[in-house]
C-alpha cells in the first residue's frame, strides 16, 4: 500500500491516464514561504490541468491565503516557482499576470465607482484591448448577473452583490486561470448558493483554483482537492476517491423486515467476501446490519439476494465518509507523524 500523495508528481504518477491528459495550466513547484522563523507554506507542489477546478481545503491558518497570494504573484515566495499557462511568474510576471484573474478574500473594490466604471478600469489595467473593452465589461456584467445594478455605486451594494462584482472583476479579461480565495466565506446561505452557482457556471471556460474551509462546497464545485494543513499538502485527490481511500474498507448498510438479528447475521456472513457484520434491532420488525468487506469488493448484489429471498429487504446503501470526517481524519493525523501510514493508497481500489 502506498501512502497518500504528498506532491502533484506523485498524484500524477499514480493516476496518470496514458493518453489525453490535458496539459497543466498552473504548475507550482516546491513553493515555500517563510515569515521570519515561521514557515507559512512548506514545499508545496501541485499542477492544475486545463479546465479543471481545484479546491484548496484546510483549516484557518493552514496557509491557504498565503498560497493563493503566491500563485497570483502578490506575495513573492521564499523559494519555489509558479508557472501560469507556460509563463513563469517570477521571471515574466507581466505575461503571467495577464492570464490571471484573482478574487482575494476581501473583494478589491472602489466603493465610489459604479460597477461599469470599475470594470472598465480593471479591463484597462488587465490589458483588454481598448476596442474590446466595452463588450468585455458587458460580458462580465452578464456572467455575474449584475445587469440591473451595473450603474450603481459599488459602495451602495449588499455583500453578495459586492462578491459578484469581485468575480466579474476577475473574469473581465477572460483569463486562462481564475484564483478565488474563499469566495463564499463571508456570505449568507442564499448568497453563498448564488456565488457557488456562478462559479459552477464558469467551469470549463477557466481553470479554477479556489480555497475554502466550507466542506460541502468542495464536493459540489471541485474536481480535485488539495488538503493542506500547517503549510503542507497532506492529500491530493478527487473528493470521491478521498472518501473511498480513507475508509479502508467497504461498508454497506441494510435494513431488513421480518427477521431476527441472529438470522440476519448468519445470512450475511454466509455471503462470500463479507468480512464482518454489526447487527442491531432497529424497531419491532426491523433489523439493521452494517456489512463490512475488503476495499474494492462489492458484496451488495450477493447480500441483497441472500436477504431478499427470505425476508423483506427494506433498504441497502453504500456508506461513504463525509468530507468532514475525511478532513478531521487527515488534519488530525497530520498533527502527529505516524510511522505506519493509516491511509491506504488508491491502487488498492482494484479495478476501479
Amino acid at each position, binding site marked *: 500500500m502506498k501512502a497518500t500523495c504528498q506532491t502533484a508528481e506523485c498524484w500524477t504518477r499514480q493516476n496518470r491516464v496514458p493518453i489525453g491528459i490535458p496539459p497543466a495550466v498552473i504548475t507550482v513547484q516546491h513553493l515555500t514561504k517563510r*515569515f*521570519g522563523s515561521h514557515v507559512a507554506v512548506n514545499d508545496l507542489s501541485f499542477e492544475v490541468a486545463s479546465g479543471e477546478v481545484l479546491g484548496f481545503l484546510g483549516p484557518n491558518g493552514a496557509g491557504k491565503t498565503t498560497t493563493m497570494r503566491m500563485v497570483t504573484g502578490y506575495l513573492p515566495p521564499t523559494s519555489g516557482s509558479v508557472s501560469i499557462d507556460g509563463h513563469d511568474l517570477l521571471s515574466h510576471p*507581466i505575461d503571467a*499576470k495577464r492570464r490571471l484573474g*484573482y478574487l482575494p478574500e*476581501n473583494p*478589491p473594490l472602489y466603493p465610489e*465607482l459604479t460597477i461599469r466604471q470599475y470594470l472598465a478600469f480593471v479591463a*484597462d*489595467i488587465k490589458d483588454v484591448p481598448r476596442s474590446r473593452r466595452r463588450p468585455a465589461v458587458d460580458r462580465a456584467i452578464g456572467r455575474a448577473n449584475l445587469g440591473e445594478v451595473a450603474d450603481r455605486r459599488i459602495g451602495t451594494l449588499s455583500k453578495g452583490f459586492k462578491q459578484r462584482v469581485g468575480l466579474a472583476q476577475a473574469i473581465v479579461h477572460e483569463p486562462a486561470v481564475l484564483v478565488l480565495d474563499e469566495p463564499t466565506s463571508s456570505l449568507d446561505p442564499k448568497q453563498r448558493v448564488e456565488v457557488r452557482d456562478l462559479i459552477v457556471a464558469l467551469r470549463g471556460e477557466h481553470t479554477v483554483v479556489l480555497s475554502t474551509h466550507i466542506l460541502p462546497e468542495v464536493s459540489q464545485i471541485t474536481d480535485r482537492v488539495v488538503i493542506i494543513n500547517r503549510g503542507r499538502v497532506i492529500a491530493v485527490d478527487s473528493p470521491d476517491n478521498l472518501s473511498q481511500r480513507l475508509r479502508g474498507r467497504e461498508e454497506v448498510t441494510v435494513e431488513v423486515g421480518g427477521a431476527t438479528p441472529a438470522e440476519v447475521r448468519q445470512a450475511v456472513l454466509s455471503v462470500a467476501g463479507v468480512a464482518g457484520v454489526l447487527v442491531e434491532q432497529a424497531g419491532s420488525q426491523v433489523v439493521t446490519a452494517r456489512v463490512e468487506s475488503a476495499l474494492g469488493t462489492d458484496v451488495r448484489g450477493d447480500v441483497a439476494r441472500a436477504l431478499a429471498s427470505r425476508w423483506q429487504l427494506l433498504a441497502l446503501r453504500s456508506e461513504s465518509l463525509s468530507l468532514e470526517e475525511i478532513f478531521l481524519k487527515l488534519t488530525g493525523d497530520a498533527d502527529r507523524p505516524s510511522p505506519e501510514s493509516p491511509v491506504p493508497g488508491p491502487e488498492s481500489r482494484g479495478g476501479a
Partner: protein
Amino acid sequence: MRHVIAIAARELRSYFVSPIAYAALTTFSLLSGFFFSNMLTSYVRQASLADGQIERLGRSPLQLDVPTVVLAEFFKNEGFILLLVVPLLTMGLLTDERRKGTLELLLTSPVRPTELTLGKFLSAMTLVTAMFALTLPYYYFLAQGGEWEPGIVLAGYAGLMLLAAAEVSIGLFVSSLSENMLVSALGTYGVLVAFYFVDTSASATRSIWVDFIQFLSFHVHNAEFARGVVALHNITFFAGVMAMGLFLTQRSIEAIRFKRS
C-alpha cells in the same frame, strides 16, 4: 502608458466623487484669494502714500512696483498654502489602496510598480494644476492696475509646480508606508514642514553648514522663483527631490509585498 493614465483617471474620479477635491480646491482658492487681496490692498495703500510723498517732497523713499511687492509675496504665500494642502491630497494615494485591499488587485494585474507610482503622481499633480488654474483670474485684476511682467508670473508658476512635484512625491512615498490616512497625513506634514522651514534654523554666521541647510530649504528655492529668477540649481533641486520621492515610492510598493499581513 495606458496603465498610468487609467490609474490616474481612476484616482481623479475618486478625488471628485469624495469631498477631498472640493475641499482642497475651495480651501486653496479661499486662502489664495485672501492673501492676494490683502497684498493688493496694502500695495494700493503704499502706492497712495508714495504718491503723497512725491507730491509734497518730489520723491519717495518707497520702491514700489507690482513684481516685487505683490507677485513675489503672492508666490511665496502660494508656496505656503501648498504646504498645507499637499499632505491632504497625497494622504490617501497608496494608503487607501492598502487599506481597501485594492493594492492586491493592482499588484496581481500586469501593472508595474513604476506605472502605479507615476499614475498616482499624475493624478495629484493634475489636481494641483487645477488649483493653480483657479488663481489665473487674479492677473486680470493686476492687468487693470498697470504694468506687470508675464515673465515673472511664469517663473512663479514654474517654481510652484516644481515645489508641488517635490512635495507630492514625498507625500506619495509617505502614503505607501502606512494603512492609516492620519498617519500618512501627519507624516507628510512632518517631512514637508521640516524641509520648508529648515532655513530658519540657519544662524547669521556663515559656514558650510548654513549654506547646506539653506540649500535644503524648499522655501529658499521657491523664493528665488517668486522673485522671477529661474536658475538651474533650483530646478535641479526640486527635480532631484521629486525623482528621489518617486524612486522611494516605487521601491516601497515592491517592499509592501514582502510584508506579512
